[in-house]
């Protein structure tokens, strides 16, 4: 299948339907099987590995839908690893959804442990010097860090003795990080969009003092600010997808740090605007906030690193 036959926007609807279907299953691997069946896991993987061979632009609406619909799986990471491991049986297993793969953004082989913030995963890509290794962590010791998200806790994984399945060199690891930042930024942005839609439609129908709350200027202005930063994130992500004027890839870090900060703002305010209801477990805004705050934890220090590099470049 070639990109000329399909447009990313058309892919978005299929992604929505498949993710909604997957969310009706309980077990992560059953969810993954549904997603794989719809072609989502292998959207970027080689056709020889069972994938669709499409480019990153097609994975973007999938990541967005995963964020908006609150899919508790590392789908963006699965998509990218299925591509990065092209030509190996590992890629085929990821395309088919037989295994779930995540990326540890904190920790390393050298440290001996790593944290999976956006899981669950059977296989985990962990930094190893300049490059990274994919390790099988299905039998490794997992120490859950459940304070932020008891339903889908962050996991500290002990790496000692975990079998190494594949290795990415420095260049491949760098490229993978660049793409992963954009998909995870879009995941956060999707989560923000879901929260904003929920808040806007609630406030347009919640009547107090004889009028919908959206008639109140304080409410309108806050919703407008939420919309503003969400549009900024989208624009920054789309810009970072393209090479710069000289054909070099753009730094994807600012798009991610911006999208995470903006999404946290939007979701926090969406919770606030729902009043008491926003504070309840029942209203599905807190899972979005937890998901985005886990990403924030995963990429802690990234904005500072971007700033330091910019300062050095002057």
């Amino acid at each position, binding site marked *: 299948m070639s990109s000329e036959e399909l447009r990313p926007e058309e892919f978005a609807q299929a992604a929505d339907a498949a993710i909604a279907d997957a969310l009706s299953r309980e077990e992560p691997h059953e969810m993954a099987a549904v997603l794989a069946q719809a072609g989502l896991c292998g959207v970027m993987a080689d056709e020889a590995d069972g994938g669709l061979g499409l480019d990153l632009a097609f994975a973007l609406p999938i990541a967005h839908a995963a964020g908006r619909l609150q899919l508790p799986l590392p789908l963006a990471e699965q998509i990218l690893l299925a591509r990065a491991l092209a030509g190996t049986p590992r890629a085929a297993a990821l395309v088919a959804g037989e295994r779930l793969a995540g990326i540890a953004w904190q920790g390393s082989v050298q440290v001996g442990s790593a944290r999976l913030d956006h899981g669950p995963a059977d296989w985990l890509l962990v930094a190893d010097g300049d490059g990274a290794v994919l390790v099988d962590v299905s039998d490794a010791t997992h120490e859950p860090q459940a304070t932020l998200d008891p339903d889908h806790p962050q996991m500290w994984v002990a790496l000692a003795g975990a079998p190494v399945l594949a290795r990415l060199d420095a260049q491949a690891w760098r490229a993978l990080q660049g793409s992963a930042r954009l998909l995870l930024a879009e995941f956060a942005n999707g989560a923000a969009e879901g929260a904003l839609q929920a808040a806007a439609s609630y*406030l347009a129908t919640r009547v107090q003092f004889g*009028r919908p709350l*959206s008639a109140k200027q304080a409410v309108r202005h806050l919703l*407008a600010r939420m919309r*503003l930063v969400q*549009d900024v994130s989208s624009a920054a992500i789309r*810009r970072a997808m393209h090479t710069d004027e000289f054909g070099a890839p753009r730094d994807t870090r600012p798009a991610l740090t911006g999208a995470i900060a903006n999404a946290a703002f939007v979701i926090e305010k969406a919770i606030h605007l729902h009043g008491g209801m926003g504070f309840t477990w029942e209203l599905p805004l807190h899972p979005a906030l937890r998901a985005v705050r886990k990403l924030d934890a995963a990429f802690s220090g990234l904005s500072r690193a971007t700033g330091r590099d910019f300062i050095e470049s002057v």
Partner: protein
Amino acid sequence: MNFEQQVIVPDPASGVEVYRQHARNWLRANLPDFMRADSLDWRAATLAESSAWEAAMHQAGLAGMTWPKAYGGHGLTLREHLAVNKEIGALPMPESVSSIGKELAGPIIMAVGDETQKQAFLPEILTMRQFWCQGFSEPDAGSDLARLRTKAVQEGEHWRINGQKIWTSGAAKAHYCLLLTRTGTVADKHRGLLMFAVPMDTPGIRVVPIKSIDGKESFAEVFFDDVIVPDSARLGAPDEGWNAAIRVLSIERATNRMYRPWRFECELRQLIAACKSDARLATTLDDGYVQRRVGDLIAEIDGLKGLVELTVERMQRGESIGARGSLTKLYWSECHQAFAGLALSLLSQVGPHSSPLARRAHQAFTNAYLFARAETIYAGTTEVQLDVIAQRVMNLPKDLT
């Protein structure tokens, strides 16, 4: 000042990157050192110097890009306009002294003026021989033009104008005022509004400068007492002209000063370079908080660049951009204002012991900080932009229907 007189402007068919490279080369070769905000030789340019510079830019194909050739423009698209603006932004050069003419009066005249008016005004604006000021705001009518009071009464072949305008930038130097009046009464609200091109040397016009927060007298109150202008000064018919102007303004709001995110980045570089040039200030750049703020600023600047480029893409595809100009203006003004605050605080310890570049930056960014107060006020305040986004982008209901 002498600029290259024989400039070969590239054929736009050779690609937007060629045009951008031309802009880059020409600007870097010709921008006088004293006009660079990061130069130790910096000084405020005189009006004549700024005019000469901007006229040379026009001659080099770097101003009036999208205006038709028949009116002195270069007949190019927004793509070249954006490419040039990226290069204008990349250099710390002064703001245009004719932005009202180029970004407001010109596009409105193009849309509602008759052929004689277009020929008389448009080429003169681009060649910097004619300056304009904007006579919209009044003491009782800022964002709410329904309360406009300045009145125009037709007397045969002439119009008699009485009223008062305020916050009129560049009124003292302007040759013409783009004046908004009403033909009826305030009860008519948005109906009966009529625009004129009024020569500023017409008897009965009085300009009273207003001193602003940055110590300059760049804007003024303008009084119109029995000012008589010929019917040929009228821009369009009552209502019709103003309605067309509103449409022009919404496009203009989204496309003017496209260089802002690139200039923002240029200013950030200037700030960091200044800190690096001074042993004491250099240590602040090792501070984690400062590094994080710089990282956040880069994210904001990238977002702004994305918004601007998206606007151009959409307009090139013929899509309506509606109220999207509000998003860019609002985001830029707030982020830039916050940046100016950071710059002021980072440079607060500069004194006689500091490096020359740090002292230059202290002067430049203190002024920038003060001037930045205006950024969330002019061209639609923050609150107006938020209203526009809520109403026109999000369609948030105000009642139960």
